[in-house]
């Protein structure tokens, strides 16, 4: 049995009158990159928001490091060393790039207190973050904002990084940058849970995969096995990898 960092067991989530998740079972092994795939409306984003406590599970259990976190509120969950990048990136447009980064660095009260060596590493992954350091984040392009969103999430070491569609709307060159960055992060031992629609992105990065449909996980296993099984891809995703 793999060392589980995060697990969801029979999770149901309602948003108002709508029943979105219908008993999600998901395991995210420690130190690996797990891809969460599925068609639009399958429940991927809702699953991430439920993990973060932004929407509360009405039934089932979310566990992190063996601890039940289902009833915790969002700041408590984030405080367990979990970073989250939402689909809309959550960039504070009126704040500078530096201020966005400082906010995520919970240990630092001033910009000078951020870990300089880690910042240099982040700048090497995302040069735009350094280039536009004192610019308002709202003035960045879509790709630069996405880089900032991921850079902000890793400004301090986190045990789990959760990212919702990092390649959405990005140019191919920027997607390659993003893939390199996640590969380096994975190499550093960070556990990552990624929601993706871009199957090639998923294929190049994923260790494990879970496929969702109609608010349930309908397939879970290794990414390699899914990539090699065209019939399974057709039946789960309606396309070939």
């Amino acid at each position, binding site marked *: 049995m793999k060392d589980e960092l995060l697990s969801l067991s029979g999770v149901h989530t309602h948003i108002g009158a709508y029943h979105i998740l219908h008993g999600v079972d998901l395991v995210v092994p420690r130190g690996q990159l797990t891809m969460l795939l599925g068609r639009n409306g399958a429940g991927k984003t809702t699953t991430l928001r439920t993990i*973060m406590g932004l929407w509360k599970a009405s039934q089932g259990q979310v566990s992190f490091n063996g601890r039940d976190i289902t009833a915790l509120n969002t*700041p408590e969950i984030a405080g367990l060393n979990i970073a989250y990048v*939402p689909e809309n990136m959550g960039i*504070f*447009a*009126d704040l500078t790039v530096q201020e966005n980064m400082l*906010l995520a660095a919970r240990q630092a009260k001033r910009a000078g207190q951020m870990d300089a060596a880690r910042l240099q590493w982040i700048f090497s992954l995302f040069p735009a973050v350094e280039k536009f350091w004192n610019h308002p984040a709202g003035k960045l392009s879509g790709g630069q904002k996405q880089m900032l969103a991921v850079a902000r999430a890793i400004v301090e070491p986190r045990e789990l990084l959760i990212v919702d569609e990092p390649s959405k709307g990005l140019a191919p060159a920027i997607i390659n940058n993003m893939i390199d960055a996640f590969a380096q992060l994975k190499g550093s031992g960070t556990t990552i849970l990624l929601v993706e629609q871009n199957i090639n992105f998923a294929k190049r990065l994923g260790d494990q995969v879970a496929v969702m449909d109609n608010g349930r996980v309908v397939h879970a296993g290794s990414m390699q096995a899914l990539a090699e099984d065209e019939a399974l891809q057709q039946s789960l995703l309606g396309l070939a990898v």
Partner: protein
Amino acid sequence: MKSVDLDWKPLALVPALALLVLPLIGSPSTWLTLTVAGLAMGMIIFIIASGLTLVFGLMDVLNFGHGVFIALGAFVASSVLGLMGDWTGSGELWRNLLAVFPAMLVAMLVAGAVGLAFERFIVRPVYGQHLKQILITMGGMIIGEELIKVIWGPAQIPLPLPEALRGSILLGDAAIEKYRLLAVVVGLLVFAALAWTLTRTKIGLLIRAGVQDREMVESLGYRIKRLFVGVFVLGSALAGLGGVMWGLYQQNVTPQMGAQVNVLIFIVIIIGGLGSTGGALIGALMVGLMANYTGFLAPKVAMFSNIGLMVAILLWRPQGVYPVANR
């Protein structure tokens, strides 16, 4: 690395308005008197409105009860200053200021403490429900006004200016009231303190970020509700300070004074852009100047001139002069 761009157009509105009316007023000395009076009034309104705009921006809470802290601050100050008659009656400025500043401090403490209870028992149960917020906070203000009547009585109470703050300084032919200069100085100090806190401290950064995207601030691990309580208490305390300034400006206090100023405050925060402190300063100065200029030039339109100002600004910038991103 370039620094942050600043949108200068709204900043130019205040001098533009002042210069625009100069030919209409004709006399430069009258214009200077009215301008200083308008700036002083604007600064007092800014002190009151600065907390409210952050409360609105941070938690989307429509607090129509903000006025009660204004009246409370003014009444507390009247009691404190009443106990310091020897100091306020002195002709020495330093003795007057040593009476006024403790009165301001006590007013802020009392208004802040009442603000803490107001948030806990009146605002917190109706988070996210605008209609209920309007009704319950207005109800809270009415209860507050009645409690003020119980403690201080229903009648208007005089709040005379300390001796050395009365009268005017002559600048050529222009008479500049001393107290108005003090109001401008206090307003600038409050703005400088707020601007420093919001731009130079992590807590300020959190407030600015929370105004834009509460959910993301929580996702970064910060408890925004605690931050909101802090901002609400600060906003109440500043309203209390503004109440002292307004009471001394009017030289009397009434239990209804908060409700009377409430309308102006909402005009100011709408002009400024909900959640924007810098915008609230611009809005407050414009409102103060407009009230004084129209009061002199066309008293009959003075009552609704600020509504006209707000409409004009919103036609130019529908979300206020400094709209907060992501809202």
